[in-house]
């Protein structure tokens, strides 16, 4: 049992977290303007259309930026330090924050990463690892 926060799904996000449990990473594509968005929401932030289709990402991304956390925000993360928090670009320029599960000194901006999963109290949480390693 981890004390790390487990995502608490909302109306908007319940389906996303459910499909994570099947090992799939879904994002929404606006049926009007084509804008792809993450996180899940009932309104397109680009054009305010309220209809969308779900598309599944292939799990490949690249590191837009990262930081090595030495001082944990809460007790639950203390034993993990130092760990990597990254912004990863996926799909058509969406940005996702997650950990890169690698030795911090191996990580650089621009690195290719691929999706992996962490079981957090029964919820599959998307994470990344360095690709081709």
């Amino acid at each position, binding site marked *: 049992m981890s004390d790390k926060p487990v995502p608490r799904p909302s109306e908007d996000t319940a389906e996303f977290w459910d499909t994570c449990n099947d090992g799939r990473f879904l994002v929404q594509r606006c049926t009007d303007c084509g804008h792809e968005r993450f996180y899940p929401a009932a309104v397109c932030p680009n054009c305010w259309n309220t209809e969308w289709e779900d598309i599944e990402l292939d799990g490949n991304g690249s590191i837009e930026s990262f*930081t090595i956390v*030495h001082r944990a925000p809460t007790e639950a993360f203390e034993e993990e330090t130092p760990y990597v928090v990254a912004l990863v670009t996926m799909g058509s320029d969406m940005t996702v924050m997650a950990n890169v599960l690698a030795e911090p000194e191996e990580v650089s901006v621009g690195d290719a990463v691929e999706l992996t999963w962490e079981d957090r109290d029964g919820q599959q949480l998307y994470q990344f690892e360095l690709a081709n390693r």
Partner: protein
Amino acid sequence: MWVCDGITHMGSTQQVAVTGIGESPIGSLPDMDSINLYAAACLEAVDDAGLEKDDIDGLVTGYSLVDPKLMHSTVVTDYLGLNLAYNESLRLGGATPFAGVCHAANAVRQGQCENVIVAFGDNRQTGFKKGDGVSSLATEVGHPEFENPFGPMVPSLYALIAQKHMAEHGTTAEELATVAVTCREHAAMRGAGQQTEPIDVNDVLASDMISSPLHKLECALISDCAGAVVVSSSEAAEETPSPIELTGYGEGHGSEYIHRRDELLQTPAAESGTTAFEMADRTPDDVDVAQLYDCFTITPLLLLEDLGFCEKGDGGQFVRERGITTDGDLPVNTHGGELSYAGAGVFHILEAVRQIRGDAAETQVDADLALAHGVGGVLSTNATLLMEGW
């Protein structure tokens, strides 16, 4: 000014003044709660303006993380026994007092009120020790579902910006550290505020790494403190001893969460700055001194770029080559900022007033135009203020 049916409308052209500034004691003040700090700053600001309690007909306050109130400004109104025509509790993170001055100026120009106190503070140094404050701050800033499960510290969110700035523009750790060194130099010159012991770049880089590339000495102080200013109408200002003019102001607001930025290195400071400069009919070249929100060392670098003092990506180079000390091209944070004076942005506004008044003591520069800029969230909310002589 325009005339309609024989009535002269001053409207948006009325001059607006900052007539008074005040601050509470600063540091670890276990005997003062958040409202005590607000009250101390408000009383001093009104006294500084040469006004009386009954002259105050407007109030804008921020909030308290340590001691939250549903209607914060109304609680302060109650505590100080005020009767108001304008009353606003504002919650825009570090941009709160800066945006508060914008709102107060608008209310004054609308004729809704004559003298508005804008105040901001909290007892975080004492309060965070007692409870779970730092944790609650940490979990309030990031997205609860899509950021916080991954354990970013608040500094991590700014560190992500700093890291990209370094990768994309070649910004160095030394350039970032120079921001902290300069703030400390100014606080040391003035001998006021929380941290006045001079430091050098090596000290900054040798301090504990919090979230790379940001070290402990690159993170704002956490303080018990409050600051306040009085924003007054042109007519009211004439009766006060040392008004300065708020010649321009503007706001720019974007996404709350860092993973939602279209451009990680681009901030809405560009919009708030443009609005303020257009209102004042000034350009960045005209600015003599800038008080730039400095929650972390990366913040002033981005603000130098987005407010138009240099090209995007050149913030580090600006600090290194042109200089932000009192003898540099653009003196920045002449009071010491949040990195050295006190952990609240409201003091940037007070310092801009002091520079225009000629009251900035050892760090006084030759200042006809002073800029103060505040940031809330992760460079999410922005407000820019421009001040000149009355």
